[in-house]
């Protein structure tokens, strides 16, 4: 009896599987024409299942923002929306050239301390209620650095201004370095010359907000941004929490080209963007290592939609250089020489990345092609480690990564295996929740760690000084080299841009020689864009670019 029942249960399961597989085969035979037939999913009318799309509507996949308050955002997800909705004095165009935004033009005094901005006179807030004046900038910037606002970016991006410190401590009621000379003229004075001050002003912290709307709201009360009234190329039409963000072009926008899209819809609830793209529910999707093989296959119709662009980032293994045996540069070099970066970049990450020679990514001004990086050489690596006699000590260490779930990423697994194979060193992986990871880095509790750095603006200062200056708050490796610090000081004061970049190249070479990091790879943005869209190029860092996107049909 029992045996017979088992037979029936198995038959049931078998029939269930036949139903599933049969259905799939049926579907294949039905849908087979699509795959080898016409180009791409936009032509085979799946739209019956999706509903009509508004003409000129761009449908994107987006991250869930923390806030849309320019003074407060420090994450890329939030900034992505903010730069389209709000605007500041200066910005980047789609060739990454720094251009005037609300500021029409400006002069810098010869000592590099005083910036005089002449504002456009035709800039209105989205609601059309009034025009933006120098007073609005004074208000917005002072709000960003006001301690009551509780912004964590205010002092980072605007801390160069004269009088900010006195304002923060309460010794002054206004920032003396921000002066509204008249409604059309804003004068900013710095404490010391800063070669990247204008670059810092492209970040949302320095953007203008509508004081009638913001009133006394601090960063953690920024619910007003659900109805944000900005000055950027697009206005916020809808923010349905956790579900979607909808932008519409601003008729008041003052730069050319004005936005040509009729609407931009971001889906922020997640889902399978690759499937959505194939079914014509999205106009753009990112491509990860799961789908890259299929997309790169020339017989795949999606292959025509494939685009890549350079990112300004670097992913690396960091060392806590204050902990033995990682305080020994030879130990660090041996570990670096034992890693086959070409294998990681091409075989494992399938061309989605480029192996990193140094720290500065190739698309960055000041990238040094002649930089002498540390090359993969397993034999020399083993000999070098032998000469230090620290193999056993090294094998007790842990590599800290951030993340959840059973499997850390393939790259880390491969590196651990390379160290084991090439050096006989067994290093353990320690995976931590992001919060704990940050705390451990802050308190220097880590030994080895894996992390990435993404540019805030295209300047080597943003990579090198922030991560390697002895007293930098973000110097997690604890690296300290007085010669490097001296080069940084020189570069900060240097007025000649070309010489300044050379100073950074020297500093980068010294840092790479000391190897407080093993730079692993630079990522590329890899994505699919529908063929009827022009000008959609993912920028290497967060800048407004949707106004350059057009539909060709």
């Amino acid at each position: 009896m029992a045996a017979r029942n088992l037979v029936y249960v198995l038959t049931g399961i078998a029939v269930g599987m036949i139903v599933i597989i049969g259905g799939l085969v049926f579907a294949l035979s039905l849908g087979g024409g699509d795959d080898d037939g016409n180009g791409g999913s936009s032509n085979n009318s799946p739209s019956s299942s999706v509903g009509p799309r508004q003409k000129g509507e761009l449908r994107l996949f987006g991250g869930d923002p923390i806030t849309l308050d320019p003074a407060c955002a420090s994450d890329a997800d939030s900034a992505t929306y903010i730069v389209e909705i709000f605007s500041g004095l200066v910005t980047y165009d789609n060739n990454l050239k720094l251009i005037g935004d609300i500021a029409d033009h400006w002069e810098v005094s010869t000592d590099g301390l005083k910036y005089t901005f002449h504002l456009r006179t035709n800039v209105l807030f989205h609601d059309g209620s009034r025009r933006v004046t120098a007073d609005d900038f004074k208000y917005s910037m002072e709000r960003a650095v006001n301690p009551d606002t509780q912004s964590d970016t205010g002092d980072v991006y605007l801390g160069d201004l004269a009088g900010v410190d006195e304002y923060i401590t309460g010794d002054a009621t206004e920032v003396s370095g921000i002066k509204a000379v008249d409604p059309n003229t804003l004068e900013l004075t710095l404490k010391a010359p800063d070669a990247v001050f204008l670059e810092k002003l492209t970040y949302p912290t320095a953007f203008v907000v509508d004081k009638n709307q913001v009133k006394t709201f601090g960063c953690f009360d920024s619910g007003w941004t659900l109805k944000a009234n900005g000055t950027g190329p697009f206005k916020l039409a809808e923010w349905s929490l956790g579900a979607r963000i909808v932008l519409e072009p601003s008729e008041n926008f003052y730069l050319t080209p004005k936005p040509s899209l009729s609407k931009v819809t971001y889906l922020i609830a997640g889902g399978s963007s690759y499937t959505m793209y194939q079914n014509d529910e999205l106009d753009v999707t990112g491509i990860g290592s799961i789908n890259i093989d299929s997309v790169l296959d020339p017989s795949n119709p999606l292959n025509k939609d494939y685009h890549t662009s350079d990112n300004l980032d670097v992913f690396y293994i960091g060392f806590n250089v204050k902990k033995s045996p990682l305080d020994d540069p030879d130990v660090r070099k041996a570990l670096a020489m034992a890693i086959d970066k070409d294998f990681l970049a091409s075989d494992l990450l399938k061309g989605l990345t480029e192996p990193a020679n140094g720290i500065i990514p190739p698309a960055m001004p000041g990238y040094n092609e002649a930089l002498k990086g540390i090359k993969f050489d397993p034999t020399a690596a083993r000999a070098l480690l032998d000469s230090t006699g620290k193999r056993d000590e090294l094998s007790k260490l842990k590599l800290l990564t951030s993340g959840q779930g059973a499997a850390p990423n393939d790259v880390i697994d491969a590196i651990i295996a390379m160290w084991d194979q090439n050096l006989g060193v067994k290093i353990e992986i320690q995976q931590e929740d992001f919060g704990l990871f940050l705390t451990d880095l802050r308190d220097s509790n880590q030994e080895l760690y894996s992390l990435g750095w993404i540019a805030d603006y295209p300047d080597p200062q943003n990579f090198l000084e922030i991560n390697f200056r002895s007293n930098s708050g973000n110097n997690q490796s604890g690296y300290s080299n007085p010669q490097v610090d001296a080069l940084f000081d020189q570069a900060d004061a240097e007025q000649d841009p070309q010489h300044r970049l050379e100073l950074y190249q020297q500093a980068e070479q010294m840092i790479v020689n000391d190897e407080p990091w093993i730079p692993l790879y630079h990522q590329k943005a890899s994505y699919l864009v529908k063929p009827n869209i022009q000008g959609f190029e993912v920028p290497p860092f967060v800048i407004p670019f949707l106004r350059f996107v057009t539909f060709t049909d």
Partner: protein
Amino acid sequence: MAPGLASYVLRRLAVVPIVLFVVSFATFTLGRFAPSDYVQMQAGSRANPETIERIREERGLNDPVYEQYGRYVWHALQGDFGTSVKPRGVPVSDVIFPRLWVTVQINLLALVFSWLIGIPLGTLAALKRGTWLDPFAIGTFLLFASVPVLVSVPLLQWFFVLKLHLLPSGGWSDASFFGVDLGIFSARAVLPVLVLTLAGVASLARYMRAQVLEVLDQDFVRTAHAKGLRGDVVVVRHVLRNAMLPIVTIFGFELAGLIGGSIFVETLLGIPGMGLLFYESVTARNYDVMMAIVLLGTTIFVFAMLVVDIAYGFIDPRVRLGGAG
């Protein structure tokens, strides 16, 4: 009977605040003892450590946990359950209720379908015991229940979306009727409801089958047959009525479970529901949202259980509430 019932309900209700206190205190404490906090995590690595420390201090995150908890309870008693920190500055109710409503719509429909299939299926399996139909029917739905959603969702997407072009691959519709958001009336709701229904049928059917078999063995069923009643009358009037009793308990649990979303289904299908919200509120240290979800869930669970117990007394007079009373 009525006074007994009233005092029973009162006694049960008296326990509610204690349950809420224990659950909220445990959640609050665990949340605050988790490493880092939202100020630190949102600031990212560029921020000035002193600035972060100042903001933490000002926001009371450095105070002893019991003090923070006291403050939370004091505000909650006045009806202020705090504000979200992702997105920032939005009252927790505005964050939670739209997503709760999405999850309830999906779960409710899936619940109805799985009952409509599961109860007849279980009954049929029991009545056909000894034939091939019984293990076959149960086996088929066991397969559906055993395939993890991580496998079934992409498979269904591929089948219905990419091959048949019948359904959209995910997302949630913004359809509304008379000002009420009813995204459930959209093709976008089909996949999530299908996945949850297929997964829910088997356990219900197996439970129903066991109940029916137990009742079929009872003397009164034999008596009914002996009296010469028609087979279907015996099944409907005697067997099903009795077999359904314990199932009511499951229904209570499932009602309470309506507000719990599936992280995987929501993530794979891009549905702004509760599963993802709760997961994210924990990882983002969105304390107030986390607390509100737990308190809401506890309250609904406690009341659902109470309703089940009372309903039980009405359906089955043999169960006497209030014990010796």
